[in-house]
């Protein structure tokens, strides 16, 4: 398939997942701010923005609040925001319209048409987040039901998996913020839609340790970091199936797969206590591995012919 199309699918996967996960994270943290008015809003918001990778001015005379979080992460134009991500997903689908099914394009376009901006804010913010999650679910559902399981599908799922690992890592990094409010794990689990799956898995004898284990290491729950990384690896192995003859004997040749696999095994084969001890640092490592893998994938599968601009030579 064309590199340009593959790239678009990869990024549709990433952007839709990014919008979905950002909505989940914001939903939880904004509710926390409301319910816990004694928390220091300025620091809480700065920390949240920092974890989400939004640079904030170090000037503490200008307090950062709920409003800034909404502008930067929900309604602003940057691709880190929900609105920005969904807009970018739609742009990518437009570039790949002949490959993306009509239904999928229709869904992304409808979403884009309904997007609010800074001026036309939805009155009920939690309802908006719910809507975003639902649109993301529809995209995933249509892809699942209409796409052949060949390369386009693998690129889409690859993008989604990498983004999911990246975002779950960021979410887990906010644990310290959540736990000072006395709620900790149930809140984080809920924001991943993992709370009920978690309860059924551990049958009510759950502790904080189990919850950490679940979001980091569970092989069966689709939003855990390990599951997401594993799915990414599987997609990569499918994509390079033709050249894998040598891999049967020795190691893994694909750099991106190596990056994801190494991060996954690093989490899986270390003692949980060790990983949880400095969660923000560990999660930063996971996040950086995702970025690195994404770069390697781009340079391998999406080579850009640098647009050459000719300059007239004057003599």
């Amino acid at each position, binding site marked *: 398939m064309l590199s340009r199309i593959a*790239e*678009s699918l990869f990024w549709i996967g*990433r*952007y839709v997942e990014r919008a979905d996960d950002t909505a989940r994270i914001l939903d939880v943290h904004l*509710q926390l701010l*409301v*319910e*816990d*008015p*004694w*928390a*220091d809003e300025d*620091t809480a918001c*700065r*920390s949240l923005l*920092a*974890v*989400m*990778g939004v*640079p904030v001015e170090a000037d503490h005379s200008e307090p950062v609040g709920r409003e800034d979080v909404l502008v930067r992460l929900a309604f602003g134009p940057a*691709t*880190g925001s929900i609105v920005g991500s969904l807009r*970018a997903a739609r742009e*990518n689908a437009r570039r790949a319209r002949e490959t993306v099914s009509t239904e999928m394009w229709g869904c992304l376009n409808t979403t884009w048409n*309904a997007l*609010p901006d800074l001026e036309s804010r*939805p*009155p*009920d913010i*939690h*309802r*908006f987040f*719910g*809507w975003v999650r*639902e649109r993301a679910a529809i995209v995933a559902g249509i892809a699942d039901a209409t796409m052949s399981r060949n390369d386009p599908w693998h690129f889409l799922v690859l993008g989604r998996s990498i983004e999911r690992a*990246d975002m779950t890592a*960021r979410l887990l*990094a*906010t644990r*310290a*913020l959540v736990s*000072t409010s006395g709620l900790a794990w*149930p809140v984080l689990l809920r924001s991943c839609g993992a709370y*009920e799956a*978690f*309860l059924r898995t*551990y*049958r*009510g004898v*759950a502790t904080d340790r189990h919850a950490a284990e679940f979001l980091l290491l569970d092989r069966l729950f689709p939003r855990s970091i390990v599951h997401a990384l594993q799915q990414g690896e599987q997609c990569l192995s499918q994509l390079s199936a033709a050249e894998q003859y040598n891999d049967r004997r020795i190691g893994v040749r694909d750099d991106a797969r190596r990056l994801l696999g190494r991060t996954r095994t690093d989490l899986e084969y270390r003692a949980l206590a060790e990983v949880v001890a400095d969660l*923000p*640092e560990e*999660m*930063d490592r996971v*996040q*950086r591995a*995702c*970025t690195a893998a*994404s770069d390697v994938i781009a340079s391998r599968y999406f080579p850009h012919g640098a*647009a050459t601009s000719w300059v007239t030579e004057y003599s």
Partner: protein
Amino acid sequence: MVELEPAPTPSAMPAAGPVSWRASSDSTRPSPLLVKPEPVTPEGSVPGAAVAWDEMFESAHTPRRAYKQVHSALSRMSGDELRSRVDALARTYLDQGVTFDLGGEERPFPLDLVPRVIAAAEWEVVEHGVAQRVRALEAFLADVYGPRQAVADGVIPLKVLVTASNFHREAAGIEPANGVRVHVAGIDLVRDEAGTFRVLEDNVRVPSGVSYVLANRQAVSQVFSEAFGDHRIRPLSDYPRRLLAALRAAAPDGTVDPAVVVLTPGIYNSAYFEHALLARSMGVELVEGRDLVCHHGQVWMRTTSGERRVDVIYRRIDDEFMDPIHFRSDSLLGCPGLLTAARSGHVAIANGIGNGVADDKLVYTYIPDLLRYYLGEEPILDNVRTWRLQEPDARAEVLDRLGELVVKPVDGSGGKDLVIGPQASAAELDALRTKIRLDPRGWIAQPVVQLSTVPTLCGLELQPRHVDLRPFAVNDGDDVWVLPGGLTRVALAKGQLVVNSSQGGGSKDTWVLRAAGSKDIEDRATHRRRPVPVLPEMAEPDPGPDDETTSDQQQQQQQQQSQGIRPVRC
């Protein structure tokens, strides 16, 4: 007097539509009036009767301390805003399916925006009183189905016990492993004209309504978030964990990692929503009778990997339907052999079989004495004054004053067959007189209690409406824990004293405030912000294919396109 039953949909309920964040964005509604509550005037009451206790207002326009913030938040709100909150609340319940089943039709459970606030000191009384009462009821049930010491000592006549319609001799000799029969209790309280909490009835069979307590909190905390955030409200989220812990503690001796199930009559039961919510939030299986099978004195559930043993059954079906061998032989809801398994100590049934004897309203009149007898303490929460119609003097007085009293059947739950004297016609009173003469054991009489009132949204006006309170208590054998909150039911019709939802009742979120002197309150007093950790910065989200560099290409593409459309002129 109060019961959870299906309720009519209030007119403010919007039709369910497709989900969109735009749903309530039209801001051009006419502004409705927000009327200040008037002082309460009792209706349908005896002339000269006391005025109901208003929980929000101390005097005509002064709110009580606990309600100050709610009052000011409501006063600040414009009519438009209020309307959109009410809509949002109703929508939440429709979307989540927080419904009652009425004759096969699902109706949303009406929830009022204005919460009921209970100050810490008031709650302390309720909490201790309910826990004390549950301990007394436990002792009583163990005695009824055991040695019957209280009968021997003349505290309660044997005749009263064995004539109670929910007394089951089949339960005699079933010994719970940890001695608990009342795993969950719902004690219905009302506040009388002086603001004192009194017990109206005990529910230790299958008290329902706790799911609405949890769902109400979730909905109101989101929709009325600013007022919610102003208070230090005790959280409810611990309930499923506490319940599961109590159920696990009830497991037969020697069970490692007991399997707990919730037994439901099925999806057509009016409280099915609650059964599903409890099972889901505890992470246990929700089973129907047909999923269970008994053999070798054990209970098993049918699973895809064969039969699995069940150790604890939290049953939400009535005694009579539990086991067709011992009770109704036509029951399809239970499972044959359950009782035998329970008797042989291989399965724990929560709540215990035969608990209904304690719910009997004639037995209720003996509970304060029984409490003194078993615990050697004075009751913290008193009963409402009640006449025992078996006693000739009391019966004569009641028959004489029938027009001023409330008469209730002893085994009826909720407002079924209840007669409020001042509101009844002469013919109804005559019919009642005959019934009482024929079956004095079947009825009790109480004075008309003006239940306390809380302002409630009726249309878009705030008006005082009567409320009751059902706190829930969980007993794990070591300790009786009372959920800080409980179900506040409200009669939505003016002057209505029966908060029964089949008669237009709704519910309110119940906010129990934290005690002054707790750490949070100190924080508030000093305006000290709770420190929050500073998290290290992570990398920016990966940028997608760069849009800026392609802008030249974009222009050229547009150009190409427009050139293509342009008619060719030569």
